[in-house]
């Protein structure tokens, strides 16, 4: 992709910016019909794979996330690559990618490189992608944890930008991952809570409570017109605990 060019996938983020006059891309690279980007083999999900397909065929927690993205119209058009490209703190796909330590594959004329999610997402809507690079795929690890749960809080039952997103995964050996969105400038992992609970084979009420408390402590949310810092903190803990409990069932 040439410098100064703008990638256009499903357009569900980019066209909003265009319609509102926030951007006026001169040189658009349309990706909607690029077959290669729509390829999905094993853990390598092409950037052009739509939410619609992820909802049907994605790993459990990513499929759960996909079902809540916008509306059918948005899911038919919007892609995982676009979600990664926008890198919103409220991106629905991102907590899953963080939980499983996915990598982002970038392609340019000078070749391909792969960045782990936490090297790729560097701030609010900021990524390590160079202007000449295209996101070609999202690479998931070979083996995914058996238990994975996603949840998203919004005040209506469809089409919401969530105030808190959470993904909890738990592997057979007890290794637990907790990723949260909308509660910090980028998607984050609640590492202390993970550490605490991973070593407990069958967590009891005390452990669960401490786990929730740590999650609430680890997030760094803000107050804005969508919610308050306090609520986001509180509900991060509630949600993480509920998802963990679902994983343990």
């Amino acid at each position, binding site marked *: 992709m040439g410098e100064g060019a703008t990638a256009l996938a499903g357009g569900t983020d980019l066209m909003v910016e265009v319609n509102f006059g926030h951007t006026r891309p001169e040189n658009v690279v349309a990706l909607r019909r690029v077959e290669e980007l729509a390829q999905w083999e094993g853990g390598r999900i092409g950037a052009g794979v739509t939410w619609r397909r992820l909802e049907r065929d994605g790993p459990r927690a990513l499929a759960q996330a996909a079902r809540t993205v916008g509306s059918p119209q948005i899911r038919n058009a919007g892609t995982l690559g676009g979600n990664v490209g926008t890198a919103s703190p409220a991106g629905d796909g991102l907590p899953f990618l963080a939980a499983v330590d996915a990598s982002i594959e970038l392609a340019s004329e000078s070749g391909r490189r792969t960045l782990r999610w936490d090297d790729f997402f560097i701030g609010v809507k900021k990524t390590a992608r160079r202007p000449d690079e295209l996101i070609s795929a999202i690479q998931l690890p070979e083996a995914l944890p058996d238990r994975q749960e996603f949840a998203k809080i919004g005040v209506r*039952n469809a089409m919401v930008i969530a105030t808190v997103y959470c993904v909890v995964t738990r592997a057979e050996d007890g290794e637990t991952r907790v990723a949260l969105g909308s509660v910090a400038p980028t998607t984050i992992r609640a590492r202390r809570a993970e550490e605490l609970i991973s070593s407990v084979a069958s967590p009891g009420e005390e452990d669960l409570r401490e786990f929730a408390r740590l999650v609430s402590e680890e997030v760094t949310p803000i107050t804005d017109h969508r919610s308050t810092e306090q609520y986001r903190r509180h509900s991060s803990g509630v949600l993480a605990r509920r998802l963990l409990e679902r994983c343990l069932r």
Partner: protein
Amino acid sequence: MTTKTTTRITPAKGGVGESPLRPDGVPKLKGTFEYAQDLHADQMLWGATTRSPHPHARIVSIDVGPALAIGGVHAVLTADDVPGRATFGLEHPDQPVLASDEVRYWGEPVAIVAAEDEPTARLAAAAVRVEYEVLEPNVDGDEAERRDDTFRRMRIRRGDQEVQGEVVVDGYYEVGMQDQAPLGTEAGLAIPDGNGGVDLYATSQFVHVDQEQVVASLGLRPDQVRAHPTGIGGAFGAREDVNLHIHLCLLALYTGKPVKMVYQRSESFTGHVHRHPARMWYRHHANRDGTLIRVEARVVIDGGAYASTTAAVLANACYFSVGPYRCDSVSVDGVGVRTNNPPCGAMRGFGAVQVCFAHEAQMDKLATELGIHPLELRRMNALTTGDHMPTTGQLIETPLPTREVIDSLEAMPIMDDGPPDDVTQLPGGTGLTTEPGDVKRGVGYALGLKNLGFSEGFDDFAQARVRLTEEGAIVETAAIEVGQGLVSVLAQIARSGLGLSRAVVKHVDTSRIESAGSTSASRQTQVSGGATLEAATKLRQRILDAHGGDDLNDSGVWRGGELVVGIEELAEAGWEETVTFRHPPTYAPDEDGQGVVHADFAVAGHRAVVDVDPDLGLVKVHRVDTSQDVGRALNPESIRGQIEGGIMQGVGLAIMEELVIEGGVIKNPNFTDYLLPTILDAPDVEALLIEEDGSWGPFGAKGVGEPPTISSTAAVAAAIRDATGRPVTRVPVRPQDIAIG
């Protein structure tokens, strides 16, 4: 009390009581119905508006040069270019057509442009260089009240002011700013007539008042401006005030070309007035047996920067501050303050919504305190025909079946089936936050009361003309169809008045008929319907008299079982009848707020069943059942549509719809963050219609548009209280209010 003989319904297919298919249904379904947004004229220019980015500032200078320099720009106009009255306003012309010295709210129009296409027009609007000296916005209502920066103060004193009840409950309540959010934004087209006049086709609820305001600000003769009813994508109060109307006409006359303007959604949020946010302090006194003894209330609404209908909304809030309950000692003080917040005005329910949330919370509090079932307390105090309004003291002469509403609501099966197993119907929906085990169910009741038609001595009338043509009967009117089904119901009324099955409604412009008044205050079915019925029945009688007939039907005039004049012949004769209908007079209140202030009333009750996830503060409104006083159901299906739609807006206000204002700036002027309920948020609705003869509307019909919105919000709030034990003193209820408190 006056009794009114209700006009006989002459049998005719498609008449009142039926629910015929909407005449505008097919074009709307096929996408061929023409809305203001879809209008087009040859050589048409596009208009756009330069708006203030500050809620309060002094305009130091305006430089239109950079905008004019853009290719394709035909005009850039400012306040200096307004030839007539510099201001407009529905009740008081206090709002500048274009701001000249000072801007008083965020998004206030400062300049308008016309250009060859829409993008160029928007570019030019952005290029107008305005230098502002930013001033501190006054956004604090208390401060405004202290400075006496107010639009109106209301004082109501009725009965003995010293009485005390054995039980007293106090409460403070708040309602956030709701937006009508009609799906069609403001749009219109103005076409110069070549002789200095102009034809205006724009979104409106009231074309005659638009026309008057255009005439005033353009300095034209009334006959030079014609406002035409136009296809409109909803209104709910947002289309009562002028917004782009004068601008369009200015640009059209200046450029000599047709000019079209369509507000984008974000602009629409600043381009029309909103529902007033309110703060309310209440004290209810009752005796141990549950008799309501005294109500004291203080109501403060924020009118924002300009008057709009704040004075009338405030009055309504005060008049209906007690609800549909008998009470002989009342004290209400109200004030509508002026601030640099967005201007507020009419929205469905018009002041009654805000106070309903408060008085119903108070009634529930009282019920708890007294250990009486909330419905029982309401029944004991139910206001009904023959009683006096608790606030104004007005004798209620038309039917007011409050008790029937309560009884029928109570009798409706509760269908308490427990939290649904369908995840889309749980709080949080497919967000998967909540499982059935996390849910607490609550049930809440509320009643609401509101006036129908205009009040306080306003000369409320509507003209309609019924003509017999080859197409059948035609009802000519300037009453706006906003989606509610006026085009169906007026035709039905004409059919039942004439005894003919072919009737259609045809909209005509302001030069061809007198005003029908506004499509608001739930009034058109009663007032324009009243005019239509009177015109139809008079016409029928005149035709019968002229031909010595004893019956008129689709074949023609009959006498003694024989056809004497065929319908074609009647059509050729050009029969027509024009009627101006007025409802019973109302009067301005005295200094204590007493008097015959209202023409008619309607009452409705709602029972909400909600599922709440208390730990996350998420709410799903499971169902809302209702019983509503409709006088006579002229079109049951349309009424159901009004009820379901009105309830949805009430639910929206209860749990999600709020314009968030910070320092006078709207933080969420878009559909991403101003949340409207989706189909997955819709509750199931069961509706009972209470019919009773005696209102002055056609065949005894009452207006039905607003009551569904009034008490549904309060019922949902009550149900959330029931589920969570939280006080819920503010709507919309936010997740944090429930989860954290």
